[in-house]
């Protein structure tokens, strides 16, 4: 954080800073996600720009006090536009030794540590694997350490409620929140209202949390252990109304919007799976929109029911992640064959198999692209930020409906749980994505009578008519067997199969004609390095590109939303740069696709650690490419932590570098 101004040097002084990254870390039962969420809403109300990154374990309650059970929430707040939750925290709140141990390596020298000293007894130290107490052995000397007995202060504060100490102790997350709220001048009224709403059914909990929250706030003000408190001015924003959304909520709202814009009922068939379940939850809350949500018996039934609903004329959606995606593959193939609209929302997580259920990854792109038997092309749309999930859902639905095809909508764990302020769109300005059902016969039968052929294609889109049950005269049968071109009856004939395979491929490829042309962001027009990305890497790539440009070096950026088909001119754009570098949280999915499609020597920058790229990693990789092209311009630079494969096909893991995180992001 950069200090802008100081008012006096006496206790109670207030400094104005331009940004800070805070990480709340504790046991998964300590309520760190709640503390983080509340701090986020408080910051949004101030008008800071912000970006958040919840990081929690797969186990609901891993053994208390162990490293496996540590849950963290990182928030980056600033007085200017930011894109990422920050490479590393400036402030680490550690509620127990395990939280300290799991996170302290990310804290740069000089960083601030706020520690619940009550939790550092022998037993908890041992559970975290500390041989000696880090509060006493000097191992934290590189940091500004504030030891605060949060547990006992919380219990003391809650005494008037009559709650037993072990119950009162559970409010300590609100003590920590109160303390940080004081330290960063957050408004407290909204959190107190929130506590009353959230816990209203249990008055003693409302009282305890409120008292703990106030106690934390007052402790900061009166204890005078902090040299200063900090203000961060509101960021400049485009005019309009904002709210803070996570990707999953934005995606759920996008689905509701898509159904509204398509004038169709929305049906979600879904099986609970992390980190996709919140979409099911959010849609299930909004039944007054007429959305029907089915918590199916399994992943297959979820997508099957969605396809059945689509047959009946609904916007059918299924949501999943990880292994759920594998289970849906057969039904996606049927939807390709039936040529019915269907949305498959995949919140990507680390794999293979159960993998890393709560950690982010981008490793399903090739599955979405190719993960079916037979020639079964499926369009793919990928969201790039939490709020963009709204728009991406509408776009994916538009393609599905207009072209009568299943569409994969890819998000990931980072987008799903991360949040950002969102300039709310004017609902009336959203696109009309409605399509017409077939109502009339479209062919003449052998008996000379008008009849309906389900596989007569629209000459422009190659989509077949969507004739829903209940329409007299259009009764027809469809299925997974190959169909006769046009008439749609079962057909095993070889030339017809080839015709149909090409027709399905041409239909999906033809979507490109309506896509906006790819346009690299290349302000100076002389960049030689193009950063090509897709999905949630947008934030880190954009921030990294900005840093490099601020250092006076040109670099171009292109971020794809449509992964299949690609924008029509993508090959030309890629070929116009000397280097195409593709940061991906996988082993090279987009890299492979563009190399195969366009014969460009795209290079992969890979990271598969379950966490997003740090801005510093992107920045270093760009600078390295620029240096390689212009060896003379080499400047003294920090050692590289990121390795790029020599020919773009392989890459070693990223070595996290905390050094850059001390710098401002932009």
């Amino acid at each position: 954080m950069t200090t802008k101004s100081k008012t006096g040097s006496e206790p109670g002084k207030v400094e104005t800073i331009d940004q800070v990254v805070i990480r709340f870390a504790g046991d998964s039962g300590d309520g760190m996600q709640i503390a983080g969420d509340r701090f986020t809403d408080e910051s949004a109300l101030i008008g800071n720009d912000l970006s958040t990154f919840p990081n929690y374990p797969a186990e609901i309650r891993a053994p208390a006090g162990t490293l496996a059970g540590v849950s963290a929430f990182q928030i980056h707040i600033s007085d200017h536009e930011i894109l990422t939750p920050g490479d590393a925290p400036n402030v680490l709140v550690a509620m127990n030794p395990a939280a300290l141990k799991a996170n302290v390596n990310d804290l740069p020298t000089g960083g601030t540590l706020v520690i619940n000293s009550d939790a550092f007894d022998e037993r908890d130290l041992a559970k975290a694997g500390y041989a000696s107490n880090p509060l006493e052995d000097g191992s934290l000397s590189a940091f500004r350490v504030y030891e605060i007995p949060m547990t006992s202060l919380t219990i003391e504060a809650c005494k008037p409620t009559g709650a037993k100490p072990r119950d009162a102790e559970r409010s300590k997350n609100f003590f920590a929140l109160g303390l940080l709220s004081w330290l960063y001048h957050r408004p407290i009224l909204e959190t107190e209202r929130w506590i009353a709403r959230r816990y209203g059914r249990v008055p003693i909990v409302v009282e305890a949390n409120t008292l703990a929250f106030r106690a934390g706030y007052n402790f900061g003000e009166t204890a005078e252990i902090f040299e200063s408190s900090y203000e961060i001015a509101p960021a400049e924003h485009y005019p309009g109304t904002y709210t803070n959304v996570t990707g999953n909520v934005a995606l759920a709202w996008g689905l509701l919007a898509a159904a509204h814009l398509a004038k169709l009922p929305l049906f979600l068939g879904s099986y609970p799976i992390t980190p996709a379940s919140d979409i099911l939850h959010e849609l299930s809350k909004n039944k007054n929109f007429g959305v029907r949500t089915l918590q199916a018996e399994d992943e297959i039934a979820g997508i099957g029911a969605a396809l059945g609903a689509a047959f009946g004329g609904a916007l059918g959606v299924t949501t999943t992640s990880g292994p759920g995606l594998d289970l849906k593959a057969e039904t996606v193939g049927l939807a390709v064959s039936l040529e019915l609209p269907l949305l498959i929302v995949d919140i990507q997580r680390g794999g293979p198999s159960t993998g890393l259920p709560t950690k982010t990854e981008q490793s399903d792109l090739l599955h979405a692209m190719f993960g079916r038997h037979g020639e079964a092309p499926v369009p793919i749309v990928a969201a790039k930020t939490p709020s963009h999930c709204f728009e991406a859902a509408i776009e994916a639905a538009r393609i599905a409906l207009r072209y009568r095809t299943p569409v994969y909508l890819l998000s990931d764990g980072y987008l799903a749980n991360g949040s950002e302020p969102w300039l709310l769109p004017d609902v009336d300005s959203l696109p009309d994505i409605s399509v017409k059902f077939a109502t009339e016969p479209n062919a003449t039968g052998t008996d000379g009578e008008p009849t309906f052929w389900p596989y007569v294609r629209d000459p422009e889109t190659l989509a077949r008519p969507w004739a829903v049950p209940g329409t007299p005269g259009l009764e027809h049968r469809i299925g997974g067997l190959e169909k006769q071109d046009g008439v749609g009856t079962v057909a095993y004939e070889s030339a017809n199969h080839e015709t149909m395979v090409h027709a399905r491929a041409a239909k999906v490829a033809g979507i490109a004609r309506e896509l906006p042309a790819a346009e690299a962001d290349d302000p100076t027009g002389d960049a030689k390095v193009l950063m090509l990305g897709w999905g949630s890497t947008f934030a880190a790539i954009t921030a990294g590109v900005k840093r490099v440009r601020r250092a006076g070096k040109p670099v171009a950026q292109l971020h794809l939303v449509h992964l299949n088909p690609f924008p029509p001119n993508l090959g030309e754009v890629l070929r116009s740069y000397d280097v195409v570098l593709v940061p991906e949280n996988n082993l090279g999915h987009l890299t492979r696709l563009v190399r195969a499609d366009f014969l460009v020597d795209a290079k992969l920058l890979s990271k598969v650690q379950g966490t997003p790229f740090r801005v510093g990693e992107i920045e270093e990789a760009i600078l390295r490419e620029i240096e390689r092209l212009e060896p003379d311009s080499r400047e003294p630079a920090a050692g590289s932590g990121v390795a790029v494969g020599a020919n773009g096909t392989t890459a070693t893991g990223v070595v996290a570098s905390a050094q850059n995180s001390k710098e401002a992001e932009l």
Partner: protein
Amino acid sequence: MTDVAVPLTTRKDWASDQEVRWCPGCGDYSILSAVQLLLPELGVRRENTVFISGIGCAARFPYYMNTYGMHSIHGRAPAIATGLAVTRPDLDVWVVTGDGDSLSIGGNHLVHALRRNVKLTILMFNNQIYGLTKGQYSPTSEVGKITKSTPFGSLDTPFNPVSLALGAEATFVARTHDLDRKHMIETFRRAHDHRGASFVEVYQNCNVFNDGAFEAINGKEHRADMLIPLEHGQPIRFGANGEHGVAFDGEGRLRVVEVEDVGEEALVVHDEKAANPSLAFALSRLASGPHEPTPIGVFRAVDRPDYGSLVDRQLLEASEREGPGDLSSLLRSGATWSYD
């Protein structure tokens, strides 16, 4: 659409122009014809009727019906039909399936459609064999079945489909067979008219891979003594002259008895509407397979709100409580702030 009189139709109106391609002599033909004969009597419209199937011989059924239809994925028809039935309560949705399709690969979907009581009419053609893959044993094949995949005899205990459906909280469970068109039509009619999920097991002969599987009970000369017609409210008795019956033994089990031995008053009176499915279950266990006297007809028919109408009620209640959904308000439902 219900306010206009449903046009009169004949069997021909319900048959598609597709050539029926089951093996000559297959039991599926008589089931198809029973359904096509029944539909004109039901007062329903072709355009509001949908047949959904999975994979297997039985699953070709939709292609032969001049209605809406979908030949889908092995085992998944109940799931697909659930999505359709829940979003389109105005439709009559039929699921046509086989013993492999619904009890093996699709077992999970069948039991959940039944417990949810989705408004579906499920016809399960049980021929105790895999026909379309040319003769492997199925989950209803008898133990020791010699097939291509079990040359030394199958080892697995078969499912009893009626017991399974009852265990899955089905509200309507019945059994019929492909040699009795009248019984099929009446059973299918009852299944169709039931509000909720109805499950009908149809004993169906596969004359190519498992010929005569049900001969011992539904062969013309055996029927009277081997098929036990269930009639609600009536003592359960059978035989050419009603000489056999069903009664509880001293240990709470049902037994086939001779009426003259026990007296008519000892016979069990069938109650398909009993809330407790114990009697229906006991009846389903009377025969260990289609070689002992076997009940046919409606085992259970009880009222329970169907899933789709419960879903719709929640939507209505939400709309009444919160007003119809407004997108702009939804986007502003969390904390918001504005800049000029």
